[in-house]
Each structure stands twice: as C-alpha cells, then as structure tokens.
C-alpha cells in the first residue's frame, strides 16, 4: 500500500488530509502551535507575516461559505494572498476535470490548496497528482471531502476540548447524531482515539451509523440518555435537511424527540460537561435552543479557536520549502 500521503519522508506534515493515522505528537504540535495564534486576533494588527507573498487557493468544489470564510480569515491573518474559487458552479461542469483545474492553478504559482469536495478522497487525488508531477512544494489542506474527513474541524474540536478539559486520557466523550454521513464525526473519532480518550461513544439510530463503527473504537448507544450518562464532552453533529425525510428518519420532530440534545438529556452528563457543535446548527432538530445558548455550550469559542487551528496548520505546512 502507498505511503501515508500526508506525511513526507521525514514523517512531517506535507498535507493535512485526515486525522486518521496522524501521530499523536503531530496533533499535539498543531494544538500547541495554535495557542499563540489565538492571541494574534487580540492585537491591534491581527496579522503575522509568515505567509507573506504566498498564494492560498480556496478550491471549493462544494459550496460552504462558512468554512471557506474561516480558511480565508486564517490565511489572511498569516498575510497570504487568498484566491477563492467556487468551482461547484464553474469549470468542472464545463467538462474540465478536477486534475486539469489543479494543473491550471498550479501553473499560477499556487503554494497551497484548501480543498472542499463532495467526493470522499478528492484531496488525496490532488495530493497524489501533485507528488506524481513533481510539485510537492504545493500543500493540500482538506476542508472536507464527502463523508470522509474534515480534519481542521476535528482538530479545532480537540483544541476546544483541551482548552476546557486539559487531559484527554480521563475523558468520556459522546459523539451524537448522523455519524454515517459525517466527515466531522470521523475526524473527531480518529483524533479522540489517538489522543487517548478511554471512553468514546457513538450515539445514533441504526440508520445513521456506518457498518463496523465499533472497529473505529466507539461504543454504540441507541438510547441517548444512556449514551450521555456521565460524559465530559457532548459532540453534536449537524443533521442535513435532506436526511430528515425519507427512509433514514421519519421526521425532524421524531429525531429531536429521541436524539435532540435538551437540557433534560444534558443533565445526565457530568455537571461540567461541555457541548460542541460544528455548525450551522438546526435548532429544534439536533439541539434545543436552551442548550445551544446555555452555559455549557462552547460553540462560539469553537469558531474562534477554529481560526487559530487553521492558522497553525497553514503555518506548519507553508514554511521550510526553500
């Protein structure tokens, strides 16, 4: 099998494609590096010069204004030039292949691609293509591929948990919701297990769980009350609109009844448990407003930390090429 394409031959981060198989010291280094970046936003000038003169291309084959914006802010705070391309509606529909698009942008002296794509594995294809064509000075950051991975989201969640809870090896963490379709859940689960979380729970109806999820190191709960009992961290997932009707779930109302996070269900977790959500939230579907706006929610800090974590990732990738 091919070498893990996100590490270079020295075992250092070459691309960020997934949290799976990312060594613990690399994850820890990303989180450590993000801490000083978090302070940058507090300054008069919210910018550091690390990526001055570098071009970061936001390659969004699937629209997501929010994710694109956070990457854009992170890159700009590193002084990079940021070029946003929403390709969901442009060239690939005109018959240009993904790799043609990449070749074209590489020819414009790109230094980094931030890639969002509806197909699992698309950023790997790009990274492998860049390597095969001798352009390994260009780095790829996966900003979400299909159901596979959303590593910066997973890492910012780890940053958030560490910020409030410090020691991963003492935690009970529940991931709740549509795990089947969630790249966020996969990135969280891999990072949590690498960081040594001893009690990792997946809470969802059977229709929203992938086969063999236990093999990823989770205990499965179909009863949310059981799943939340005594946990330190509740990680809620977004339920996409299109899943709410049809054969996966009967209705948003019934989903909320069994798997929506309410104050009453949250009361079963530890009193100081924190609640995370990757946003955007569906209030009244996966989370009750009272919880979303309550004292245990750390959803807005997640957003702030997300910028710092993305700055850390880009800064770690962008240097040392000369």
């Amino acid at each position: 099998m091919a070498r893990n394409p996100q590490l270079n031959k020295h075992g250092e981060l070459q691309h960020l494609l997934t949290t799976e198989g990312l060594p613990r010291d690399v994850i820890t280094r990303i989180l450590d590096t993000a801490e000083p970046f978090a302070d940058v936003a507090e300054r008069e000038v919210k910018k550091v010069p690390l990526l001055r003169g570098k071009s970061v291309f936001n390659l969004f084959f699937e629209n997501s204004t929010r994710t694109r914006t956070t990457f854009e802010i992170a890159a700009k705070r590193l002084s990079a030039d940021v070029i946003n391309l929403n390709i969901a509606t442009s060239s690939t529909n005109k018959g240009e292949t993904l790799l043609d698009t990449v070749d074209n942008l590489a020819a414009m002296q790109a230094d980094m691609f931030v890639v969002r794509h509806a197909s699992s594995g698309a950023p790997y294809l790009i990274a492998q293509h860049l390597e095969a064509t001798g352009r390994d000075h260009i780095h790829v950051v996966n900003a979400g591929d299909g159901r596979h991975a959303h590593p910066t989201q997973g890492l910012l969640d780890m940053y958030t948990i560490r910020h409030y809870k410090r020691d991963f090896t003492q935690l009970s963490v529940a991931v709740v919701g549509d795990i089947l379709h969630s790249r966020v859940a996969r990135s969280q689960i891999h990072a949590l297990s690498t960081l040594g979380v001893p009690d990792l729970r997946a809470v969802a109806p059977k229709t929203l769980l992938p086969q063999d999820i236990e093999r990823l190191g989770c205990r499965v709960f179909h009863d949310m009350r059981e799943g939340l009992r005594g946990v330190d961290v509740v990680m809620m997932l977004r339920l996409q609109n299109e899943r709410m009707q049809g054969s996966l779930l009967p209705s948003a109302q019934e989903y909320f009844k069994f798997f929506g996070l309410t104050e009453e269900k949250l009361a079963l977790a530890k009193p100081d448990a924190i609640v995370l959500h990757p946003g955007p939230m569906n209030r009244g579907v996966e989370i009750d407003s009272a919880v979303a706006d309550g004292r245990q929610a750390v959803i807005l800090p997640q957003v702030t930390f997300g910028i710092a974590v993305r700055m850390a990732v880009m800064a770690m990738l962008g240097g040392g090429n000369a």
Partner: protein
Amino acid sequence: MKIHIKGGRLIDPAQDIDAQTDVFIAAGKVVALGAAPDGFHANRVIDAAGHIVVPGLIDLCARLREPGLEYRATLESEMAAAVAGGVTSLACPPDTDPVLDEPGLVEMLKHRARMLNLAHVYPHGALTVGLKGERLTEMGELTDAGCIAFSQANEPVDDTQVLFRAMQYAATFGYTVWLQPTDLHLAAGGVAHEGEIAARLGLTGIPVLAETLAIGRMLQLARATGCRLHLARISSRAGLMLIDQARLDGMQVSCDVAIHALHLCDVDIGYFDPQCRTVPPLRAQFDREALRAALADGRIDALCSDHTPVDDDAKQVPFAEAEPGTTGLELLLPLTLAWAREMHLPLKLALARITSDAARVLGLNAGHLKVGGAADVCIFDADAPVRISRETLRSQGKNTPYLGRELLGRVSATLVSGQVVYEAPARH
C-alpha cells in the same frame, strides 16, 4: 500449415493429462499427441521445452468496448490483448453502446472479430432491450446471430415480473441466463464493500446483503421457471453459501468469480485507489478466502478476467466518481498461477478453471486439446516474470491495481485454430 509443438509439458485438464507430450497440428486441428502421425512433416516446429502447453484459455467475461466505446478500447486492441494473455475464446457481455440487443449488432461484432482472426468471440445477448429491464429481446433471433447466452451485464432487473418472464421465455428454448447478483436498491449509490474500510474512508457501502438478496431472488425464479442460471462474479462468502444450499436442494446452477476478487479485498483500496473500484466491490478478506477455497474445490465453476478497459480520464477522478472495472485479459493467466501457487493446487486443477470448466459453463466444445478438436493452444513459461505496465499491456485499458508490479507466468505463444496468432517478443 502443420505445426509440431515439441518438448513441452502438456497440461490438458479435460483429458487428465499432465506430462511431457508433443502436440501435432494440421489444418487447424490437433491431429496427434505424443508421437507424430505417419507422414507428418511439420512446416514449423515450436520448441516448448521448459514451457507448459495448455488449451487456449477461455474467458467468461471480457469487455471489448465495441460497438460504441472505441475511445476506451477497440476490437483490435483487446483481441491483441487476449491472445497476448493466452486467451483464445472469450464471452463478452452485452453492455456496449448500443447494447447488444439486436441481431444486426451481434452479426457485425462476430464479423469484425472473424476478420481480425484472433480469438473466438462469443457474445452474450441482452436479456432485455437496452438492458433496461423492461422488454424482452428477440432471444431466438439473437441466438441465430451468434449469441450463446443472455445477460444483463451489470444492470439489474428491478421488476421481478419482467425477470420472471424473461427467465420463463429463455427456459422455453433452453437458453442460459447470466446474471450478476446485486440488489439495485441496496447497492444504490454504493461504491465499496460495506464494512470497516468504507466506514473509515467515508465511502457509500454496498452491503453483502445486496448480493445475497439478489441471489436468493434469482435462485427462486430459476427454480420456478426451470431456467438455466449462471451467477456471474460472486463476491461474498454468504452468497456462496446460498448457492451451496441450492445445489444441495438439487438445483443446477453455475457461477464464476473474477480473478481480481481472488487476490484483492477492500483493504487494497488504501488511500482511495480508483483502480480498486470494481463491480461487485472488492469485499472483506474473509470473503476473499472463501472465494479462493470455493474455486479450488469446484463450488465456483470457473474464473473470468472481468476485463473492463477504462480510459485514464474516467479513472483520474475521486474514487466514487471513477468508472469501475479493471483490465484483465493479460492478467488472467499470471493471477491464476499465483492463486494456484498460494493455495498449493496442482496446475491441472487450476488451469481447468480457465479452460475445460469455462468451456462447460459456456456450453462450448473448446478448452481441450483432444485429437480432432480445434488447435487453440497457449504456451507459457510459468516461472518467467511479466511486468505489468502501461508500456507492456496491449489492452487499451491500463487500469489495474497491478500496474508497476511483476507477476509470474509469461505467455510465449498462442495459437488459434492452428495459426500462431501471438509470439512473445524475444527476451534479452
């Protein structure tokens, strides 16, 4: 043209031969084994010392991409690939463009193949018009045009009434129906075996249930209609067990497995290798072990290459968007030999699966070197390495996970109807 194949080790499973035996060929037929007939003067002597001489290989499923998909492959390129792989007869599924659902198309294909004078081509006619699973094709006319069975290729028939009637109609005339068992709805959107790997990679899974449910349905319909059924490319252990049970119950049913499914499993997808996207999907390791064993003990009747040339543009895309399929004609022999070696099987048994057993499944008088039979012959060196690369593959499809690998089993010459149609380039 009289040919004397001299000094080779003849392995002919149909005649239970595995011994150093000379083969004498005249007028396209085998005229003697062992000693030359009286007055035989060879125009050509092929020195097969140290090599193995077998009946030309028979491939149950090879896509030639004609008509309609010539950008993927042409009859010329794929027939050259066939004989370079030692394959002298092949059955092709009807999923061309247009679909092989009209006698004229079948006649044209047969005619083009005859003109090339390489391997024998045995088309499968479409079971339903356009493979749409709605209307029956003119199976009688298609048979007269040269179809030897009827198939839906990889297209399912959703409407059970249609499938029931198609099998009834085929049974009326004794035609065999070939079906690849996959439940349309359970497999919808799926691109990989549903299991840990698909869960990790975030790929939509195709559950084993999609195969077992379809096999159960097909077996029941075959029993009810009396139709002769061949199940193409079984992928799972659970599917095999259903077939075993049906046979215990006295049903006549045959099945095959694709050669890549004997060697690869879902783990080989690695980091989204689109070359490992196949129909049906590469399944779990224990499924692969079950397939290997079942082929060895004959519960799976035969092997096929499931040759599917795909152009680079359709593979250089994210896994789920990649066109499924692998190129296989030139890998069939080396991968069969690898399976035999790894399973410690006698060569005679292993080679039966791609010669005499395959002929039996297709109902052909081929796959043997009996005196009086067609002189379709493959001569190979079982220990010589072949490098699988873009440059060495003759098929227009360079799509295989084995690209860049070296396998053992090099074809040195192929004869079709007594004509040498392929000789390996001299080695340095």
